Structures are given as structure tokens and as C-alpha cells.
């Protein structure tokens, strides 16, 4: 089933087009990442499909229109910051969400345990740390087990431990087959959680597809030795190697067609008279890919 279809959505703030003729389709079961640098229109786009921002033109449709205007009750969303009543505790806050979504028997305890907030469930929201607030927001998005979850920069402002915790939680959710739409400027995050990705910049869609298709499949290896020019020349004669580029950090980056064991590369270099002082296999991250794509526009 088609969960969300966006058709030519446009939003202008004065003369600036925050979102420009954006079209996307999200199918059921996808973990869909919307990637883009800060200010690229991710939140504006999500704001429009969640009815808090009025589009200037274009349209969108949830669940092929089957729930009509009540579609948002079937979507769990967290946009930008966690927004709760600071004078209420976690249970009361989730109670309001459950009431709005008309959930009959909400399983708050289960959700709070999932996000590690069970012990603090009766503390007021205002006493929470940023990470706890963010985790409560994830729990609140999951109240009533909605068909789609939307996360906007879910790890913003968290410390490394908090980031790891949130990502693990998101990965677990994605593995259950639930449809997830996640906006982020951190590619690593999208790569870890998402199956599909759309890259946007200045409100334009630059590329979209499966994460595998967007990432190039070159196999990358970093090497270094005392005689760098000699090493580079030697590797250029090897047919398995598509490209050998000297990097600023003083290492040589090899692009290989196929996956090759590190030992084989080391052996080959040694046979040409070079003793490698550095050898590292680099899976090219989506981050570099992303920077490449957005820089070219």
C-alpha cells in the first residue's frame, strides 16, 4: 500500500522557496530517510504533511485517502523538539496523546520500558534531561501503535551515548516492519536505520532510491608507505584497481571493483617492494556520497 504520496508540494517564505515542487512516495514497510543539510526544507515538508504548515501549492495524500481527515491519528510523529506539558509527568503526557488518538487501552508501561523511562514515569516532564525528553517523544509517537512513525532529527543535541540508544531503538522499530519516515542531516544515521532515502537540498529533490543504490559500490582501501609516489605508480599498474588517489591526510585511496582481502593487497604491495605502514578498508560512507551529491548542484 502507498502510505504517503507527495505531489509537487511547494512552500514559500517571502521570496525564499523552502520547499520547491517536491514529490515523493513512501510505500508500506519502508524505512524512508529524508536527507538534507540544515535548512533544506525537511521539517517544512513534514510540517505540511502533518497539517501544521499550509502549503502554497501541491498536494499530499495519506494511506491512499482511506482515513480521510483522521489520517494523522494513524501516524505517530515527532517534529523538531519534543513538545510536552512541562507540569505533567510522563504518564499524564502520554495520556493526552492517547486521548487525542482515541486509543482504548494504551500500554504506557511497555512503551516507557522500551525507551528506558519507566523509572522516571511519575517525574514531571520539566525535570527531564534532553535525552529523556527525546526518548519520551519517541514513546509518545508510538502510542496506539500507529501505522507510520515520523522522526525529525531524532538524535539532535544528544550526547554520543544518547545517540546510540536512540538509534538502537529506531533500528529495532524498523526491523519490526513498521513504516518509518525519518528526516536527518546525519547520513550515518539514515544509513543505519533506513532502507530508502531521498536527498533534498534547497527544497529540491536531488536523488531518491534504495540506500544501496544511492551509495556507490566501489570497495575502498586506504594505504600508505614511505615512498608514496612510487606506491601510487605501482598501484596504477594493477588491473583490479580503478583509481588510486593521494589524499590530503597523506594516504593513498584505492578504488577497487570487487571486495578484496587486506592481506592480498599487502602481499601484492610487498611483492612490488613497498612495505605498507598503513592499511585500512574503508566502506565509503553515505556521508561522503551525500556531500558529493549536494556539492554538485
Amino acid at each position, binding site marked *: 500500500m502507498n502510505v504517503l504520496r507527495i505531489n509537487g508540494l511547494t512552500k514559500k517564505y517571502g521570496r525564499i522557496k523552502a520547499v520547491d515542487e517536491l514529490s515523493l512516495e513512501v510505500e508500506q514497510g519502508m524505512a524512508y530517510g529524508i536527507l538534507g543539510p540544515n535548512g533544506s526544507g525537511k521539517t517544512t515538508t513534514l510540517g505540511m504533511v*502533518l*497539517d501544521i504548515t499550509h502549503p502554497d501549492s501541491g498536494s499530499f495524500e495519506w494511506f491512499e485517502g482511506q482515513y480521510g481527515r483522521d489520517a*494523522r491519528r494513524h*501516524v505517530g510523529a515527532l517534529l523538531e523538539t519534543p513538545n*510536552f506539558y512541562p507540569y505533567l509527568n510522563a504518564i499524564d503526557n502520554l495520556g493526552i496523546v492517547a*486521548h*487525542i488518538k482515541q486509543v482504548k487501552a494504551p500500554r504506557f508501561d511497555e512503551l516507557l520500558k522500551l525507551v528506558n523511562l519507566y523509572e522516571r514515569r511519575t517525574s514531571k516532564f520539566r525535570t527531564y534531561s534532553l535525552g529523556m525528553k527525546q526518548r519520551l517523544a519517541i514513546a509518545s509517537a508510538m502510542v496506539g501503535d500507529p501505522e507510520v512513525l515520523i522522526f525529525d532529527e531524532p538524535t539532535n543535541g544528544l550526547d554520543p551515548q544518547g545517540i546510540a540508544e536512540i538509534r538502537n531503538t529506531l533500528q529495532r522499530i524498523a526491523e519490526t516492519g513498521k513504516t518509518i519516515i525519518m528526516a536527518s542531516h546525519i547520513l550515518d544515521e539514515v544509513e543505519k536505520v533506513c532502507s530508502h532515502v531521498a536527498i533534498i537540498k534547497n527544497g529540491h529533490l536531488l536523488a531518491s532510491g534504495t540506500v544501496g543504490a544511492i551509495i556507490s559500490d566501489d570497495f575502498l582501501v586506504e594505504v600508505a608507505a614511505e615512498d608514496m609516489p612510487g606506491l601510487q605508480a605501482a598501484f596504477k599498474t594493477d588491473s583490479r584497481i580503478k583509481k588510486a588517489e593521494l589524499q590530503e591526510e597523506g594516504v593513498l585511496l584505492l578504488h577497487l571493483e570487487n571486495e578484496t582481502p587486506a592481506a592480498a593487497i599487502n602481499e601484492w604491495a610487498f611483492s612490488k617492494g613497498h612495505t605498507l605502514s598503513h592499511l585500512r578498508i574503508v566502506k565509503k560512507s553515505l556521508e561522503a556520497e551525500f556531500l558529493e551529491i549536494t556539492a554538485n548542484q
Partner: protein
Amino acid sequence: MLYLLRLEWKKIRKLTSFRLFSICYLILLPAILLTGLRFDELPPPINTNEVFFMFPTVWQYLGYIGNWLCFFFFGFLSIVVVTTEHSYRTMRQNIITGLSRQQYFLSKFYLIVVVSLLAALYYALCGFTIGYLNTEAIYWHKVWQHADYIPRYFLMCFGYMAFGLFLGFMIRRTGIALFLYLAYIMFIELILRWGIHLQIVEHRSMHFYPMNAVEDLVALPFLEMADEFTSKYGFSIYLQPWEASITVLVYSALFLYLAYWRVTRSDL
């Protein structure tokens, strides 16, 4: 409707300002009237403090005290319940979670209707109790002589709250909205009416301003004294209750419509 009211209740039952304002109102409404017990002799035209507690005048005096209390506490409350949801960004979250903008607006509208109803009921309860205990011979026609004060009292409270809701939705910032609410009712409208309107046209149309009409619904009880002003300007300084009621209804509808328009049109 119950769905939205129960949602509002979940939101405000632990809100400090709601608790504080409600308790203040519940205590002060009878308490202020009862301070009248300390004044045995009063200047004319009141003469004796008995009129404070007897049917039918108890309705007027208690109502006038309630007028001030509703102006402060419930007017403030109607602003705070809107602006805090803005600063906490919970209004935005309510919409994301699934409420429609119409429902959000309606939930606030129902809230002010219910609070005004409860305030008026409490006023009726206090009025009956105090009147019953302090009137020696109770004649039912005396009891009911000014009982039209009860629906007028409701409309008065509703008028303040509708204006508060309007300012809350329009201005969104608690401090500025509260300041404007106080400044408009206590100074700006007075300046408009007495300083500008009256100087241009000396006509009783100067009374048909929103907050003046609200105040006149349950006005200062010394109607006799008003005659002096009547002779000076050639018209009464008060609106008739029916005029005030219609004026309040028209302005409240306008305020609520503008607030609704703002809620449905603006980006959150």
C-alpha cells in the same frame, strides 16, 4: 464535545494558574462580600450593611464583586490556557497527534463556556446561601426579583473569557497578552469612550464598547447615583441589561470568529 472537554481537563487539572485562580475565586467571592459585616454604618445611599446580604440586593453586590474576580482570574485563565500551549508548542503537537484545528479551537471554546457556567453556578449558590441566612422574612418573589443576574453573570464571565481567548490566539505571548488585556479594559477603552468618542459625539453610543458592555451586565449597584450623570449628559451612564447582553454576544461572536480564523489560517 465531551471528548474535547475531557482533553482540556487532562491539560488544566494540574496547571498551577488554573488551581490558583479557581481557589482564589472560590474563596474571595463570598469572603469579600462578608467583609461587609465589619461596616455597620455606611454613607447614603446605602446606609446599612444589611443590603449586602439580603434578597434581592445580595445579587447585585455579590455580582459586582464577582465582576472584578471574573475580570481578573477567569480573563487571565482564558489567556494563559491559550498562550502557554503556544510557548510549550503543545498546540502544534496536538495537531500533529491528530486533533484538527477546528477541534483545537472548539476545545478552548467549550472550556470557557463551562468555566463561565460553573462560575455563574457558584455565584448562584453563594447568593442563595448568603441571602437565605440573612433575610429574616423570605418572600420568593423577592428572592427571584434580581435572579436574572445569574444568566447575566454567566454572560459577563463568558465575555471576559472570549476577549481573553481572542487576545491569547492573536498575540500568543503570555506577558504581552495579559498586559494588553489589563491595559485595554482599565485604560484604553475608557480613553476611547470618554476621551475620544464623547468629544466627537455626545451620544450614548459611547457605551456600546465590548468591555463596557461586559461590565454593565453586572454593574456597580448604586444605580441611584447614576442619575447625577444622567442629568449632566442627558443619558444614563449604563446600558440596559438587554442592550448589554446583545452587545456582549455580538462582540464575543466577533472575537471568537477572529480567533478561529487565526487558528485555521496560521502556520504553527
